[in-house]
């Protein structure tokens, strides 16, 4: 088996918070637990999806991987190198190999730089092509992401949202990365434009043999692109599975709820009660044990202890005391209960 391109090893990141204008040095230290003990690997050429709702830590994780943050503990390995151990010049050499596409290209593009200038800049800084070849390369990149070459002298404000995201992708690709980290790249876009960008990402991945870490709150988008998916909740990875397995037989009650909460475009599939009750607890003071237990329909006293990682099938696991081992035939007692209890849940039974 080949070496993974990316490996996260028990990565934890917290952000200390200070209350008020004057910090209280003697008060209890508080921190936002953004990412807790996350481990996974991504193989070369693979598309790995990370899904979760706001506050689950997925964007912090993206920033840890491109080393915009350093982990408090644990490590991020890229091509067998620990990113935290790299010096300044090594890091600079590494930057072009891991690139990021952000949600809002309007805020990640310099408003005073034309498309040509934005793309030329990264080509120059990283010496991707000789300076005389830059213009040609800009044109090639624009073709590659489906931007008309005539737009090269336009500024970001003159472009539509979809076009701006194409520029964001072209700029990431300009330095010929191995790994593309895309953090909610289609979230701000209209449905028809979103479909165009998703098709573009799929095409580019196949043409350029890119490894893609695709992060989104939208399950359908993650499913469309990814071969494997990790589900995050409140800073932790709660389930991981090949995409088909995850959607066909989710092993964690949170995944089950999340899948049920997505409004289906089939009007004949209708449910009366909310799929997941209550609201996200504070990441400053996450629940002990299983972080999902305060909203979980099958939680028991044992859930106050940290759940084991339960292997469910090849490459499929869930961090739940009640995850079922072995092949499920759609009649797992714990998950059948999740569904029936979710039906009983009243919408005013909020726990907060």
């Amino acid at each position: 088996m080949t070496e993974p391109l990316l490996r996260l090893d028990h990565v934890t990141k917290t952000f200390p918070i200070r209350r008020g204008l004057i910090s209280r040095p003697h008060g209890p230290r508080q921190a936002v637990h953004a990412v807790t003990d996350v481990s996974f690997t991504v193989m070369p050429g693979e598309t790995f999806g990370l899904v979760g709702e706001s506050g689950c830590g997925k964007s912090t994780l993206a920033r840890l991987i491109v080393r915009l943050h350093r982990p408090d503990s644990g490590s991020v390995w890229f091509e067998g190198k620990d990113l935290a151990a790299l010096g300044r010049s090594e890091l600079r050499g590494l930057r072009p190999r891991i690139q990021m596409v952000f949600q809002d290209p309007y805020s990640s593009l310099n408003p005073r730089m034309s498309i040509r200038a934005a793309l030329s800049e990264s080509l120059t800084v990283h010496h991707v092509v000789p300076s005389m070849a830059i213009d040609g390369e800009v044109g090639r990149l624009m073709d590659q992401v489906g931007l008309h070459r005539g737009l090269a002298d336009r500024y970001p404000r003159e472009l539509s949202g979809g076009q701006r995201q194409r520029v964001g992708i072209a700029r990431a690709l300009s330095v010929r990365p191995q790994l593309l980290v895309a953090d909610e790249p289609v979230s701000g876009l209209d449905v028809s434009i979103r479909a165009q960008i998703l098709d573009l990402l799929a095409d580019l991945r196949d043409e350029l043999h890119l490894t893609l870490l695709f992060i989104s709150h939208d399950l359908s988008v993650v499913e469309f692109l990814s071969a494997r998916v990790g589900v995050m909740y409140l800073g932790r990875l709660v389930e991981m599975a090949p995409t088909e397995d995850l959607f066909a037989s989710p092993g964690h009650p949170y995944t089950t709820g999340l899948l049920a909460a997505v409004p289906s475009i089939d009007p004949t599939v209708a449910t009366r009660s909310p799929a997941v009750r209550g609201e996200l607890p504070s990441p400053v003071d996450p629940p002990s044990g299983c972080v999902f237990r305060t909203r979980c329909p099958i939680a028991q006293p044992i859930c106050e202890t940290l759940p084991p990682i339960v292997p469910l099938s090849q490459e499929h696991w869930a961090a739940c005391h009640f995850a079922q081992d072995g092949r499920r035939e759609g009649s797992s007692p714990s998950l059948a209960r999740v569904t029936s209890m979710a039906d009983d849940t009243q919408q005013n039974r909020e726990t907060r």
Partner: protein
Amino acid sequence: MTGSGVLLSVENLTTEYRTAGGGVPAVQDVSFQVHRGEIFGLVGESGSGKSTVIRSIIGLLPKPAARITRGTVRLDGLDLISLDPREMRRIRGGRVAMVFQDPMTSLDPVLPIGDQIREGLRYHGITGRAAQARVLEVMSLVGIPDAPRRQRAYPFELSGGLRQRVAIAIALAASPQVLLADEPTTALDVTIQDQILKLLLSLKEQLGMSVLLVTHDLGVVAQTCQRVAVMYAGRLVEIGPVTTVFSAPAHPYTRGLLASLPGLATGRTRLRAIPGSPPDLGSLPSGCAFRTRCPIAIERCAEVVPPLEDHGTDHLTACLRHQELGQTDD
């Protein structure tokens, strides 16, 4: 269909924005009816004019930039467009209430939520003990736990989901006949969106009120609405019962939108995206505005604006080639 008869009727509504380059039509010749006790969906992408429709109905168009140049809006027979501002204020928040996308901007940040609900009631003549009882009643109606204590909370102390519940409570306080909801769940996480949509459904059942739900999300429409109108570049292109429109879309735009959704467990490797982007409202293509992106457009589509025509079962579409659409399977 639930209920009986038409509650809110919009006829030939045309709303323009004034710009340096002349009038830009944001809404053109839009007609639809919301029945009593139904949730009616108005779906479209950004710039399609769906929010302008809502703002035209409730008299909240930016002035003097926008004005209604044609059409009528009738609530139970009462013409809302001809009302003077004072009369309109009594309707707004009374018989017609509204919920916006972002409760953090629609709520007053420095007023406890209970007072904000009470404020609306006072405006409609309910004060004192009756008002206090109503505050607690609507708070529990929208599923805010521990109402007696929570009424003293400020918006910043609440999560996004609870804030939207507060906004809905304010809207419901004066027992409106119709609730206009403009992207009410767009800013929320999917599990919270699910809770709010189910809340809207149960409120509709309990109170028998009508809801006009504006959204860009087809899944939201499928799960909550009985009927839906699809908007593109300021015009309605299709109206019908949700079950019909979603299973047999009769306009190429609706069909393209549905095909643009990744959809869970469909196993598709590419989405058949609609090519191009929506036209600039200031320079719309002649004839059918969608023809520049339409896979089945013909020359005649550039010559006439296709009328919204009924072809049975309350299903209307504005496409010259809708019959061809039914036959091709792409």
